[in-house]
């Protein structure tokens, strides 16, 4: 989610709540008999409010599981998650009076910092990275479709090379199967214009098998010259210099296929960045909520 002008009201409300909480904390911290602590009335109030904010933030995951339930727009829940989740940190710190007096509370404090920090990181990622994806992967597709698209690109590249490297008769037959009402001689004459000599055919096939095909089969590998756009450009320029002009268009098609493969690889990496941080944030948050609940029960009971 981009943090933009539309968050202004949430920002103002959060800052207001923070200011009020801080203003209320100062005299409590300075003048409360016995000093500020978690089990004092104000301390409990801060704790309940802070835990309530964390709970609401944690419910976002559940909200996403029921997308069509009319319990508030997902956008509202997300904004609440961001701002109330961030506010929960000072609330809990005020509750604990900036101290951790036991192993459980120590762990919880560390977890709280980790969750908020990972959350802020995630918010930053989701603020900046979508635009990056938009700019660097204009041909992006649905993530789950990437393997299918890759299969199609591979098939397309193979078809281009097969056509380039086909024997004259085979090419004519292939072309004539698509044309009706044309003589085979005319087709063969036309086909001869795009065919290579035996040596050139062998060269194209060798380059395809040795360099292009391995890359297309495993586009995420970094050791191929085709995995970097500048080097790929040089590679194809060199190939074009070695090849007759008639095949340059086919080589450009192969080049654009490789370019699309690189974009898909880029898309995968960016996608992992966009969603991978949740692998840290979500387990930590669940742990924190569970421990918070245990802490509350233990504190009430004992």
């Amino acid at each position, binding site marked *: 989610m981009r943090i933009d002008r539309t968050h202004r009201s*949430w920002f103002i409300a959060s800052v207001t709540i923070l200011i009020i909480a801080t203003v209320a904390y100062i005299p409590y911290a300075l003048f409360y008999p016995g000093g500020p602590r978690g089990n004092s009335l104000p301390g409990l109030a801060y704790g309940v409010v802070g835990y309530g904010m964390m709970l609401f933030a944690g419910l976002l995951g559940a909200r996403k599981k029921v997308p*069509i339930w009319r319990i508030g727009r997902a956008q509202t829940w997300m904004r609440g998650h961001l701002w109330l989740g961030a506010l929960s940190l000072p609330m809990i710190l005020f509750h604990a009076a900036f101290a951790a007096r036991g192993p459980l509370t120590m762990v919880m404090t560390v977890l709280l910092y980790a969750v908020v920090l990972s959350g802020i990181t995630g918010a930053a990622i989701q603020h900046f990275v979508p635009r990056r994806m938009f700019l660097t992967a*204009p041909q992006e597709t649905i993530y789950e479709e990437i393997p299918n698209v890759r299969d199609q690109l591979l098939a397309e590249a193979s078809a281009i090379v097969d056509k380039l490297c086909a024997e004259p008769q085979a090419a004519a037959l292939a072309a004539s199967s698509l044309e009706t009402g044309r003589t085979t001689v005319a087709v063969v004459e036309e086909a001869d214009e795009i065919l290579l000599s035996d040596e050139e055919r062998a060269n194209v096939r060798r380059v395809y098998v040795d360099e292009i095909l391995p890359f297309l089969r495993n586009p995420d590998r970094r050791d191929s010259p085709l995995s970097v756009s500048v080097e790929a450009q040089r590679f194809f320029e060199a190939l074009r210099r070695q090849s007759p002009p008639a095949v340059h268009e086919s080589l450009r098609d192969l080049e654009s296929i490789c370019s699309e493969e690189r974009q898909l690889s880029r898309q995968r990496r960016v996608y992992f960045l966009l969603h991978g941080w949740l692998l840290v944030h979500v387990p930590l948050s669940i742990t924190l909520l569970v421990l918070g609940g245990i802490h509350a029960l233990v504190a009430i009971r004992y």
Partner: protein
Amino acid sequence: MKTIELTIDDKPVVVEAGTSVFDAARMNGIAIPVLCHAQNERPVGVCRVCTVDCGDKVLQASCVRPAENGMKVFTKSDKVRKHRRMILELLMSDHPSPCARQRVSGDCELETQAAAEGIVTPRFSKRISPRGQDDSSLVISVDHEACILCDRCIRGCDEIRQNNVLGRRGKGYNAGISFDLNRPMGNSSCVSCGECMVSCPTGALTNKSVIHTVLPGGDPVGVEELKQLPFFQKISGTFLELNKNAVIKRHFKPGEIICREGDYGSTAFYILEGKVDIFLSSMSKDKAGTASGPGFIEKLTSVFSPRKKSTGVRNADGTIPMDAVIDLTLDNPVAELHEGDIFGEMTCMSLYPRSATVRAKTDCVMLEMLRNVLDVIQRNKTLRAELEKNYRKRALEDHLRTVPLFSTLTPEFIDMLAHKVELVRYSKGEVLCRQGEAALNFFLVRIGFVKMVEEHPGGDLVLAYQGKGGYIGDIGLMKRGTYAFTVTALDNVEVVRIGAEEFREMVAQFPVIAWSLNASANKREEHNKRHSSAVAAISLDSFLKQGLMEANSLLVIDLEKCTRCDACVRACSDAHDGVTRLIREGLRFDKYLVPTSCRHCRDPLCMIGCPVGSIRRRNSLETVIEDWCVGCGLCARNCPFGNITMTELPNTGTQKAVVTKRKATSCDLCADLPEPSCVYACPHDAAKRVEPNQFFKIMLAPSTTDDTFVTPGSVEGGRR
């Protein structure tokens, strides 16, 4: 167009060159019996029942014989009647009389014509080898015994519906119709659209079950009752039987509103009894819709702030306020209709919102029918010509009365103008006027969109586009004498064309219009100059090429906010029994992805030709596909954006509709929910349903805030 003169049954007639003898007779009220020719199909001259004497060596099949200048045609001479009788008798000898159609609806065309010729029992013996029946289809019963090999079903399937399932098999006595490569109908690629059955003149193809159309609010009407009415006489009884409840009878009390101007709809009305008044209650200016609702904090804080005063729809004095120099009154009907009149067909035909409000003046009984029924009625060319004539007259008058530019014209001048102007239709790509040509006409856009392009040596520049309510030709007529740009239709366009002479008379008599047009022409020229030097024309061109201006409600995803979490797709799927109507893939416009999801177009091509009238609009913007869809796939093929998907649906056993292999599905804007689920479920504020003309206004005209040349949209926020 060149005309020719001939006589038919000693009656002199004048027709356009190229007209067939059959059509020449039909247009002049002379009916020639026929079996293999349906007016909406290409004539093939197979049955020879329409034989006439044209003075040639042999009798000719009138449906395929072109009329010639000076021809003398006799359709009822003894020779012709003798031949026609023989043909009918031969056909009847191979026909199981009474066939299924004759038994059910009494309108087998062969048996009706044979009876008219007095043929009771043919003299010739019946064939020995049976041709058989085919009951494999769930919807249509095939009786090869009753088939007269007229090929109407083949032409219906191949040329009208383009399903290409039906064909001919065999030769001579073994000839017959076949499905795919002579498979049983139920095992073929037949999509059960029913077109073959509608086309069949006999009981060879009849319906086995009804489509279970559910048109609410009225009583079902029997086939026998419908066949008494002139509009329905030529419609196949088996079609009417199949589409029971696609025509219902409704009763209205005096004062009751039958349909409201601006509402969407997909039905036409035929008045059986009573009178109705027609009102025009608003000018041709799109209404501003509601923006998306306030957020959480805004709702919270709005408790403390005074609410904004909402603009009312109506003034206290009963007038309708609008952005014009006058207000129109509700109590001033512009027309009255009576028994036997039809209305609402404009909405049915053009698929645009109702153009007028209709209110019952007396107790009324009328028939309400779906578009597929009106489509079949219109196959009768004579009836279609009459409907077209009424449509043009009414459309013309409505439009002239509601254009703000003409608000100062007197009713008398509008009536005079209505007789002199033309309603002209252009298909996509047709040119209305060319840059540099003498300005001879003023165009008012009634339906559709047009593109205004300035031609330059280095390449053409798209300056703007105009939709409903826009006009072209003012600069040419008022200032330059020639058109300033080339105007091309972007889709099916209808314009009111006013000739230069009438235009000049109008501006001379009504100086306010001249002043208004001069001011608008000056602004437009200034805009064009600025736009010519701006690079932003690329955006407009892309906008038009993607057809975005056609959308009433466009789903866009801001790719700078979207985290590709697919919450929108999951929500759509959850809201529609696991079948998503949204695919998060499509073209891009600027930073927005335009996913594959119904755009609820102004000109919904998907609705054209639905054999059962199931894809339609009810009273609101949303395109809905009703339960009785038969899964023929025509709407999916018609949609230029690929937004309709054919989905295999399981037969739960509780479906009221005919069991089919698949059904069409598309976005219905979650009509039964306050907000589309995809937008509701997006956590990142990336998915929006917008009215694209408004939403992209700034981007398309960066050098001006003037919205004169980008037609204001009808809906803000995507929902009316």
